């Protein structure tokens, strides 16, 4: 059955676009048909991270305004036939689209793809409301910082108010050494407050920066630790029970995390 998933965070720059690109690529590599929607109208990014910028002719706003057909605006990925991108407009702003139009768009795409991933803009205003409008479920991205967790909590509350099912959490940019020193929130600290299901933990990894600049999602390169994390996340999205990556060889606390979490919620 098809699913529309919005990737959102409240706070900016925590890795929504990185997650959208990598989860999309990983799901496609596992044989699923995937379309990525860049809902960050006016701050288009996903095309660059996917390395597809030079192929854009039409964009999301063209589609909802009827300037082109939906299929004309979909850009096929370089690597996978079963992966597409619907880019954002760079010259418009968030008010160029309404939640109703997004709902309709997601409905049409859902009929054609296994997964529709919506890359949400930061914030809780119109752009966020558009991004969640057509979504069945949400993935929250948070970094181990107090402000990011606070914003994630706010988003979870807003999703609850929209009667969406409880979102799942990706903790991005974890640095085990800092957590061990007590200089960074640990996963259990974050889960303590947010109390939602953990979908994955992505380490802070230089390979993300390299792959982002190259337009090659890290999930497709074998050597990247973050890439492994995103591939695991994709398999969990498909319902597989994948053990959590052991980021910290010294005590393996992430390995125990899932059991801990499963027993308390």
């Amino acid at each position, binding site marked *: 059955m098809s699913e529309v998933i919005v990737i959102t965070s409240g706070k900016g720059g925590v890795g929504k676009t990185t997650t959208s690109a990598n989860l999309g690529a990983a799901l496609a590599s596992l044989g699923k048909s995937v379309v990525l929607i860049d809902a960050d109208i006016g701050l288009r990014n996903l095309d660059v991270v996917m390395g597809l910028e030079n192929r854009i002719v039409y964009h999301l706003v063209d589609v909802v305004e009827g300037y082109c057909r939906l299929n004309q605006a979909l850009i096929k990925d370089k690597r996978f036939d079963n992966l597409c991108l619907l880019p954002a407009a760079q010259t418009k702003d968030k008010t160029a689209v309404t939640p*109703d139009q997004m709902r309709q768009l997601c409905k049409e795409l859902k009929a054609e793809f296994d997964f529709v991933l919506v890359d949400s803009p930061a914030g809780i205003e119109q752009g966020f409301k558009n991004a969640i409008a057509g979504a069945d479920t949400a993935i929250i991205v948070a970094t181990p910082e*107090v402000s990011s*967790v*606070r*914003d994630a*909590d*706010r988003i*979870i*509350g*807003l999703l*609850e*108010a929209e009667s969406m099912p409880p979102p799942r959490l990706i903790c991005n940019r974890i640095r085990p050494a800092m957590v061990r020193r007590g200089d960074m929130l640990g996963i259990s600290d974050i889960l*303590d*407050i947010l*109390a939602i299901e953990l979908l994955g933990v992505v380490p802070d990894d230089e390979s993300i920066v390299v792959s982002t600049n190259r337009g090659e999602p890290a999930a497709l390169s074998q050597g990247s630790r973050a890439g492994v994390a995103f591939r695991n996340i994709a398999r969990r999205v498909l319902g597989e029970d994948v053990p959590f990556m052991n980021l910290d060889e010294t005590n393996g606390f992430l390995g125990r995390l899932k059991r801990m979490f499963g027993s308390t919620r």
Partner: protein
Amino acid sequence: MARRDPDDRGPADPGAVRVMATRSGLRVRLPRAGDVERVLEDLSRAVVEAGGVRGGAVTVDAAGRALDAAVLRRMETLLLEHHGAALLQVVEGQADDGGPETGSPGSRARGRSRQGHRRVRGVAAHGEREQAPEGPAAVPAGAVPQRSGASGEDVAAAGRAEAADVASGRGAEGPAPGADGAVPVLARARPGPARAAADGMQGLRVDMTPTLLVRRTLRSGQRVRFNGNVVVLGDVNPGAEIIASGDIVVMGTLRGVAHAGATGSAEAIVAAFRLQPVQLRVGAVIGRAPDGHPARADAPEVARLRDGALVIERFLPQGSE
């Protein structure tokens, strides 16, 4: 989204939900007739159109409609979950009340004077109990209590680390300057004036104040204000806020801001299964967590005023003292 032009239904439309901003939040008047489902839907839309609930509390004027407990509970849930607001009270206004839509000073005064002969029901009692309104009708909006001789910045330190010192009258940082003469002295004995012991139950401390039961975790940005006690069956996360004229009890971890006794009661308490607030207020006294890494609570605790200072103590069930 089926949009109806608000101009379609003039003030005379008997099927319309009407909203008025008041000092204590929003006042909503239900139509005399019409399907409950539509009324709830219209209520939600009217609140959105009014720009949300600023005071955090909604007063519903039933205008002669019979509201059963199930409808009240749905209304309470709708307001709380979709608008972060507490249903403060249900009042019976006159059916022909044609007051202005906005709360001009005149209309407010008029509304207040009328409350004398309005029947006010405590929400938590779901209409089973009726009482005459007494005291302030609502927790005032923006309720930082007035303190004479002390500004809001004069924060009495009441962090857990110093709790033992504060209890003995001396916080690690000492009481804030200016706060000394201004804070009310806490009488240890209960019940206070608002807590009547029921007939034939001498010795039992029975609290008849309306109590709002929040069956969920309050997340960042969510706020509950209630004229009575508030009990949360969940956590209160950082960035969330509870303001109550009575006591606050959190059956989870309190990490946000809690203000008990917001209408000035120095006897109010804040109790939590795990008490780790950024800031606590009881009556007119404010306490904040110590800077740096706060110690973690490992047992249920209660914050209350002792000799005018906010202290945090282990929770001991009444009667075991």
